[in-house]
């Protein structure tokens, strides 16, 4: 009654009023026969980081579609719905995106948030709502140090990958001097710092520079032309190994510039660059010989990988990209837990509890979480670009 009166009074504020009308519709509808639960995804869907977010969104969507069709887990006693929530990869947008997810009472778990900054901003809210979040891509080490019981991630954090990379560069590649470059993103600078510290500890001389990720690759603010100058600097340093922390697109541009400048040293990068696009954009001639590390097993060795890629492209209209497989694994891990709990046992808190004990064999790895939410057994694999193909060399030393 009071509400209706207020709405009448507020004719000029049509905007707010319409939103009020919409609230009624969000209430979960429980079907009598098979209950419906929602798995949400939080990540960038618009703005400069949209592509990275879309890589994950369609993988989540695919996993849900397949589960509903009974293809991955057999016939499930419940139906799954999908709720994508856009945070533009931004910390200030993230709480709003989280509130949308939390406010939908049918949401049982979240894949995401995609970015570390967005996670830092939203995780207190998710924790308060006891809603499990499984991030396919947030790698900042401090995320696991806040005692958020609902926080999980299917990727290794920077502290696992950075030192492994450093060991490979110093011990295996026998580099005495290393040129290390990051793209200025939270992910890359964290990783590069871990890498630099470990390499220095092992006695290598490390020169570090930040070349901001470019708008050419959507995420950053840097300009592409900087890479020619950076390449000159790297070449002058005569470092036999150049380590790049960042994503494949900028890495490809940098690699091209390095080779164009006549740099002969070895190139190395991280999981952000483990993408066939790296080879196609840099060109096989440039990319050959590059080492890439990832805390994930070789996709191509898994029989499920090829159909995954095909089906992904069918719904996304673009090929699988960075973190697609991780997002797919994160979603399936959640679904496996829900299957195990059964319709009677499923609620937000029970899923958090169950995730602490889950073991699920995914595309990229066997998913099992440590108590702090980090992925267990963070084995880092080294990949090598040979004849225009990225092939796995084996575990990092």
């Amino acid at each position: 009654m009071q509400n209706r009166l207020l709405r009448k009074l507020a004719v000029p504020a049509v905007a707010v009023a319409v939103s009020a009308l919409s609230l009624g519709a969000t209430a979960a509808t429980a079907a009598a026969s098979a209950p419906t639960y929602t798995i949400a995804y939080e990540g960038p869907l618009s703005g400069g980081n949209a592509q990275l977010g879309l890589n994950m969104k369609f993988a989540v969507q695919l996993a849900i579609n397949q589960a509903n069709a009974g293809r991955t887990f057999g016939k499930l006693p419940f139906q799954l719905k999908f709720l994508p929530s856009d945070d533009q990869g931004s910390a200030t947008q993230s709480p709003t995106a989280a509130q949308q997810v939390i406010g939908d009472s049918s949401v049982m778990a979240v894949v995401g948030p995609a970015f570390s900054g967005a996670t830092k901003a939203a995780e207190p809210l998710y924790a308060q709502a006891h809603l499990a979040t499984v991030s396919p891509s947030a790698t900042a080490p401090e995320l696991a140090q806040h005692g958020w019981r609902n926080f999980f991630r299917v990727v290794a954090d920077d502290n696992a990958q950075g030192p492994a990379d450093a060991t490979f560069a110093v011990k295996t590649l026998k580099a005495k001097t290393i040129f290390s470059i990051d793209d200025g993103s939270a992910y890359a600078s964290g990783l590069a710092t871990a890498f630099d510290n470990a390499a220095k500890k092992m006695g290598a001389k490390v020169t570090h520079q930040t070349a901001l990720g470019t708008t050419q690759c959507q995420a950053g603010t840097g300009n592409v032309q900087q890479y020619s100058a950076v390449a000159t600097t790297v070449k002058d340093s005569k470092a036999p190994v150049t380590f790049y922390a960042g994503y494949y697109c900028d890495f490809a541009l940098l690699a091209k510039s390095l080779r164009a400048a006549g740099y002969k040293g070895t190139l190395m990068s991280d999981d952000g660059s483990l993408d066939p696009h790296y080879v196609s954009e840099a060109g096989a001639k440039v990319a050959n010989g590059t080492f890439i590390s990832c805390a994930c097993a070789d996709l191509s060795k898994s029989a499920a990988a090829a159909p995954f890629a095909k089906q992904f492209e069918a719904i996304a209209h673009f090929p699988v990209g960075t973190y697609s497989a991780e997002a797919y694994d994160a979603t399936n891990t959640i679904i496996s837990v829900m299957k195990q709990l059964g319709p009677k046992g499923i609620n937000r808190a029970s899923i958090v509890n169950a995730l602490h004990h889950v073991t699920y064999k995914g595309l990229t790895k066997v998913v099992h979480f440590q108590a702090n939410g980090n992925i267990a057994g963070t084995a880092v694999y080294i990949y090598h670009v040979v004849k225009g193909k990225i092939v796995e060399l084996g575990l990092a030393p």
Partner: protein
Amino acid sequence: MTTPLTPAPTPGAPLQGTDSLLLEPSGPGRAPWQRLLANEDFRRAVGCLAGFLVLAVMTGPSGSQGAPTSGFTGSLFNLRVFWFVGLAAVLWGAMTLRRRYSAAVKVWNDKALALPRRLLPDTRVRYGAYFVLLVFAVVYPMHISGFWQEVAVQQIGVYVLLAIGLNVVVGYAGLLDLGYVAFYAIGAYSAAFWTGAMPVHLPFHLNPFWTIPLAILAAMLAGVILGVPTLRLRGDYLAIVTLGFGEIISIVAQNLTSITGGPGGVLGIPHFSVHLLGVHYVWGLGNLPYYYLLLGFVVLILIFFHSLENSRVGRAWTAIREDEVAAQASGINVLKYKVMAFSIGASTAGFAGVMTASQVSYIEPADFTYQLSILILVLVIFGGMGSLPGAVVGAAVLQWFPQFLRLHPLFGFQQQDLYIYLGALLVVMMIFRPEGILPSKRRKREIGLAEHGVGSADAMTTSTAEVQ
């Protein structure tokens, strides 16, 4: 011999027969196709059709790298295109009818608007309306979901604050600031610094409340330091200097890792709290307490800006905006008032920064981008430059709309297409209503005058440098 004058027709009466001799705008002696192109009805029809075909592509399926034309063929060579062609025809018909009966439409409009027009100038009615709105703003958020409360604080509240601050700079003084977000960042990082959340901190920590004046001061100081040398420059130059300043601030925040925390940002900025006279209250994760705090401040600032607008200072700004040279000539210290507007705007943004930092308790440099400066500017101009209600409503509507779409993806709306629609909305809006949705009376007059070729409607072309 003197030639007698032909008798002059009575003033205002049309000359017999001249109407039929009116030269068409297309001029005489043109090919039929040229005449067709010049025909207003035809042009409108083409415009409507083109507009709706673009809409068909916008709303159609996406293409992909491998098949770059598939999006176009999927939306244009598809049965759905007939919907859009039909809508175009309807719009064209409506426009044609409206033109034909424009006199009748105007009468009808006047009748419908007569009451509001009579009431609006009445201050009692206006203040009554404001009061009702205020009551609404106080009561309504208690009844909405956590999501909308979050929107009310972070998406609307903070942006309203930023918009009314920028409104002082752009709307009142007519200065184009493209780096406004820098001051927002300065405010947020000040809050982080004084509360001890940054890597570099003082031996003591302050309650976030105390950081408000400090952050405002820091932003204001930055505004003065940037403003004094650059506000002599002409409008366009000021725009790019402020843009550069914004970029510099965000790069500094990103790169001085040991001081600012770098790209990883600053986590753990405490929430506001009160510990006074036995009262202990902490603004926690809930949004309502923040909402009311913000509402209170916004109302205070609105009252302050409103009185400022109608004071000597406000009149000086108007003079500068309308004709800087004349303002200077009549003894107004142009630079002083410009710096004043600039730093008042800056400090408002600084305050908004504290609110964000304290509520989210996390900030990162990636959030203070050039695009955000542009967005805030868009809010101000969308609402109506120089108009406080305009800035508030503009920010509220434009910030609310994407959130509405998020919950209600109308017509299969895809979140990744959001900016296509926002972009188109801005263009259409500027074509049909360049003065914004709630223009201030004074600006309406200025724009009206500009339409008649008297004066310019913003201070973008003159500068003190030119005067000197």
